[in-house]
């Protein structure tokens, strides 16, 4: 098997180094761990990062799967089709109005005056929580 060879190859190439490296943390290393095992990202000296889920999924998608294969990327939930309801940002009640200045949703006139007295970082926080913070043009 190609794979097995490549793993063994790595170990054979630099056995001395592996032992030296692992000597230090060996005290911490539990007995059941294979002392010669090296993570893929560490093989070859330079440390590489682990692939993110996004990269893994993108790679998986690019393979020529037979049609109708259930894959991680194929079972993503459907997009929202109905328009979202509006809820007041500060109280959570049904938001009937929008403050044109801060773009926050609100329900009553009391809330409106509260909104107007809020510092800008709070209003920005509410907007970004709702994913509605578009920068000022």
């Amino acid at each position, binding site marked *: *098997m*190609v*794979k097995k060879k490549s793993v063994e190859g790595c170990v054979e190439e630099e056995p001395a180094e592996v032992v030296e490296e692992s000597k230090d943390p060996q005290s911490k*290393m*539990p*007995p*059941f*761990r*294979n002392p010669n*095992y090296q*993570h*893929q*990202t560490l093989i*070859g000296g330079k440390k*590489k*990062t*682990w*692939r*993110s*889920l*996004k*990269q*893994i*999924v993108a*790679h*998986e998608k690019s*393979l*020529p*799967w*037979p049609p*109708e*294969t*259930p*894959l*991680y990327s*194929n*079972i*993503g*939930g*459907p*997009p*929202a*089709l*109905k328009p979202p*309801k*509006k*809820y007041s940002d*500060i109280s*959570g*009640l*049904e938001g009937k109005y929008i403050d044109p200045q801060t773009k926050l949703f609100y329900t009553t006139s009391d809330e409106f005056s509260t909104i107007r007295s809020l*510092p*800008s*970082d709070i209003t*920005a*926080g509410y907007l970004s*929580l*709702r*994913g509605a913070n578009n920068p*000022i043009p």
Partner: protein
Amino acid sequence: MDIVVEFKDIKPVVDTIHPYSNALKNSATPIVIDNGSYNCRVGWATSTRPLLVFKNVLAKPRKERGKKDGEMQIGNDIPNIEAVRGNLKTQFDKNVVTHMEVQEYIFNYTFSHLGIDTNRINHPIVITEAPLNPNFSRSLMSQLLFECFNVPSVAYCVDSLSSYWRFPSKNKTSLLVSIGYYTTHVIPIVDGIVDFKRSRRLDLGGQQITYYLQRLLQLKYPVHFNALNLSRAEELLHEHCSIAVDYRAELTKWADPDYYDTHVKLIQLPFTAPPVPLLTPEQQKGRRRETARKLVEVNARKREEKLAEDEEQLNQLLSIQDLLEEGEDDEYQRSLEEFGLKSADELLKTIATLQAKIERIRQKIANSMAGNPDENVEEPKPKIMKQMQIPRNEEDFNAWLESVRKKREELLERKAARKQRRIDMAKRRTLASVERMRLISQLAADNEKKEDDFGRRDQDWDVYKVINREGDSDSEAETERLMELEEALRAHDPTFMVDNSRTAQATAESHRLHFAVEAIRATEAIFQPQATLGWSQAGLTDMIEWVLKMFPEDVANLLAQDVCLTGGLANLPGLKEKITALVVEMRPFKSKISVRTVPEPSLGAWLGCRDFARNPESSKYFVTRAEYDEYGGDYLKEHSRSNVFNPLPAMVGISSDQQSILSSVDAPAEDIEVDIL
């Protein structure tokens, strides 16, 4: 209303190392691991409950130069998770394991806490994975288990399916809804066969709900920003949140102030009362007098020292004068030079000034001795009294007091407004700074038209007054005025101090959270992710409807007859009722509908895997080391609780496929995109 709930802030109990008995050592009992993205649960196939339940995270202190690497902490070893929040690492990317180094540390922790001390793991492993876990992720996991820990064999289960198969429905046709930490799945099972193709995943779970709740409270109580940490939000979610069956109706109820008052939960944040009670005005006066007296003493001592010094110098100069009188010219000249004096005249002059100085200091000392020290202390008071005439008769006095109070309020308000403006100015994109930019650009545009003769006339500089409006800084005069008013109030208004002490006592109250709509608002995110979190995916209800619509009517009917809830959040009060109501709404009139929650939903996955591991029939579903070497890391033996195995599509040959997996790891990481929550 009166009940105040306190945060428990439960500290984790450090996991003990379980005994590794000889019976276990020689038996090849499988180890069952529910590798959940929130909690990891581990036990032997023979255990009734998992022996270890810990948060599946690792805290690695940041490397500091010149310091030794700090101890790595895992799960329950972390005494205060909030203290290391920034250094937490997880092997998960959403619900899929991607970071094998962290996974290795977690396994080290797990196996050593099971007491294993042999030089390899001699036990088959049953471990959970995400539904439709990518082959790549599974191959990494198999590689780690087989090559790093030398396990004899591995079996993979899907967490939600393990939980389901403990309590399947009679016809083995169910719609499984699993609410996890990062993801929520809807998985249809028809005649005992899991239909992965028609499953759907919502990338939202307990983690986002907790985050949403935390942010909501932080925005509501910006003062307690730091006290409202994720652990507390989690506690609130587990202890006080519920799901509103009819969200809109519930909101209408909350809009009524009476309902709010009777149903709001008060939650106490920890706070420490100020240790020293505030000083009474008498004590304050006494303290001030004391410091003044000390100051006077210090001054007197300094003066005396100066006096002694001057006298000493005078004596020396006088002795030089004596030399002249005695006729010792040589000595006299030398002494003059020593003191840096040029002539006899200068000597006389210095002596005269010194004498005058000494006289002055003596006078001062005599004065301060004779004078009442209190007089010195109370100097600022008469000034104020002069400025404010206090009316004698009571009515006028009250009116005057009222006006002083009002003036003070006004001053304070103006100060606060200015402070706000300064804060706004410092930030971009605020109304104040945008307005300022507009003014500046307007002015710049005006100047362009004419010749640039700015500064020739004095009124040119008025531009800055326009830009800055009336001063942004607190004027000193104003501060002084405020102090005067407060002084007057302190002296004449008996309620003024009381007012102050009230605010001091109110700290307990001010550390109290009003937990009202938030209890249902945070959990509603699963059903309306777009309205609450701005998510682009549809909510759980729409997803269930979507999945049901993919089936022919008769199968959909059967599925709706057993909607089965599992996962960590399945026990949220109201979830079952809400899903029932929503499924009834989407199904045809008079359809038979039933919704149930699996017993012990959060532990179900582990228990299901354990049952699987105990069953002797299961042994054929384990992938052995030989099979791993033969078929590759992603190889999977399908069973009822497992994923489907999608063998990698043949490109050139099997070997090259393997190569592509391996080489893809080495390939430079392309298109790294950071997901912003």
